[in-house]
């Protein structure tokens, strides 16, 4: 079972984001980077498929600057076999369609039965690249998946996905693109032997030219701002529960006019 896992390195969720002085982006100094949490579910699921079928490989595909190598190494330490690192100044800040084009071009040079993407990256929050990649590769997409069962012949899968207020179970032919959601699995930690082994696993570097893609942006951003600072409001301490409840419920009606 060959899985391709698209993985992005993102600021740790604990990061305090600050907008830079001219509003063109965020301050990147001192940020600790991690694997996008949704991509960890993807890595784990791909490893489980390889274990289940007792053959195949898990390839990590990443776009990003040099530091993104650390995220690939972490996935290799979890057990993935090798990495492909698309590292090109022109693509590092690419919008979702350009990213999907680069991922599609890289995927075309690889073999896979299934492609995993996180359903969104927690930095840009577009939730778009997986579906765009599926369309560019002319593959079916199943987004927000919480369960993947691949048939013994590896030709199809039964997949559970979240839909608004419920669940959908679909049957999909492989290869396909699935986007991982919380609930899919519990990602494993990298073991110490895994970390040692990961150092020797290959990471193939690619540029935009290697992939034959142009980084012609379809979107542009400007004017980054911080959200309005929320002030602490009224805090009621030492009141009897009955009294506190009364005061706040009344305030919601008369002051906040929300109920």
């Amino acid at each position, binding site marked *: 079972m060959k899985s391709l896992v698209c993985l992005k390195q993102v600021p740790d969720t604990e990061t305090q984001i600050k907008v830079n002085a001219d509003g063109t982006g965020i301050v990147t100094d001192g940020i600790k980077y991690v694997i996008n949490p949704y991509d960890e579910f993807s890595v784990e699921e791909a490893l489980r498929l390889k274990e289940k079928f007792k053959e195949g490989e898990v390839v990590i595909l990443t776009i990003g600057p040099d530091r993104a190598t650390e995220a690939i190494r972490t996935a290799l330490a979890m057990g993935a076999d090798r990495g492909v690192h698309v590292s090109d100044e022109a693509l590092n800040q690419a919008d979702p369609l350009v990213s999907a084009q680069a991922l599609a071009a890289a995927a075309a040079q690889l073999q896979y039965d299934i492609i995993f993407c996180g359903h969104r990256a927690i930095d840009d929050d577009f939730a778009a690249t997986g579906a*765009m990649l599926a369309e560019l590769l002319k593959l079916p997409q*199943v987004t927000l998946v919480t369960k993947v069962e691949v048939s013994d012949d590896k030709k199809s899968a039964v997949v559970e996905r979240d839909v608004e207020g419920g669940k959908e179970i679909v049957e999909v032919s492989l290869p396909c693109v699935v986007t991982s959601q919380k609930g899919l699995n519990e990602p494993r930690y990298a073991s110490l032997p895994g970390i040692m082994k990961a150092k020797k696993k290959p990471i193939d570097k690619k540029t935009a030219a290697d992939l034959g893609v142009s980084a012609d942006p379809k979107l542009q951003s400007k004017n980054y701002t911080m959200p309005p600072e929320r002030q602490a409001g009224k805090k009621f301490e030492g009141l009897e529960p009955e009294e506190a409840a009364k005061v706040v419920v009344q305030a919601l009606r008369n002051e906040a006019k929300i109920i």
Partner: protein
Amino acid sequence: MSNVMIYGEIKAGKIKKSAFELASQGRKLADSMGGELAAVLMGPQGEQFAPDLARYGVDTVYVLEAPELETYNSEFYAQALAHMVGEKKPEILLISHSMQGKDLAPRTAAKLGVGHIADCIAFELDGTTLVGKRPMYAGKCYAQWSSTVSPQLASARPNVLETAENPKAGTVEKVAFSPDTSRPTYKTKELSLDTSGKVDLTEAEIIVSGGRGMGGTDYSLLEEMAGIFGPTATVGASRAAVDAGWRPHSDQVGQTGKTVTPNLYVACGISGSIQHLAGMGSSKVIVAVNKDPEAPIFTKADYGIVGDLFKVVPEFNKELKTLLAE
């Protein structure tokens, strides 16, 4: 003429409120550009909603009918939507950033070879360029995004844009559509929707959320509060509660859960980690109940009650019931 098109989402036989939000926003954009506003609805159920859409300013409702469009499918719906864009050549296409929209919009954008400004909370026009303001890093900052190519496709966060009635004569046009069925896609085997009418977190107007302080799976106090508020209210949870297995992952509010924007967010037994605060920080009014007076949630709450939630919430519910019964 510069035209605007919206995609109206139908769920369980009903048109979603987000369609009226998009129509109201689309009307404003179309007026500024001196253009018309069209809506696309999928499936035979669509026609009945044309009068509702006309009330919010839609000039023409296109109803696409094909057996493949009877239930949602990313491939066929994206084909159908891309087809309408090809036929009617709108300058702007707006979709809801609902769970269906997150599946449909990017695939449609890729079919059209354009970008997708996802999850916008506000729009403006710079000439004929659509500028969408969107939260990033789960709301830790915002940025304005625009497209460099046409058509300009954007999705809007549900429950944020205001609805405004602006009645138009409104016409309906049925469009026969035959999707390319040679493209591989999935087959829906089972669709189990909660038919209780409970709203999704991202669309709820009121969210009653519980965290570590709930101490277990019994959320009946919070369910009761949501019940008193009515059908636009629902129950959420912090990551701690979800990771403990007390609540399903789909209930999680925060950076690795859902970013929510209700009118009222009631946080019970939630201390307020940076990830949680990012996810609910755009709520209009925040109420927090927590035993720990130092909990970070109190720095964001409009109304904070320091106390035991198991004593405060029952009183809160009693008070609320009395008030809302008046």
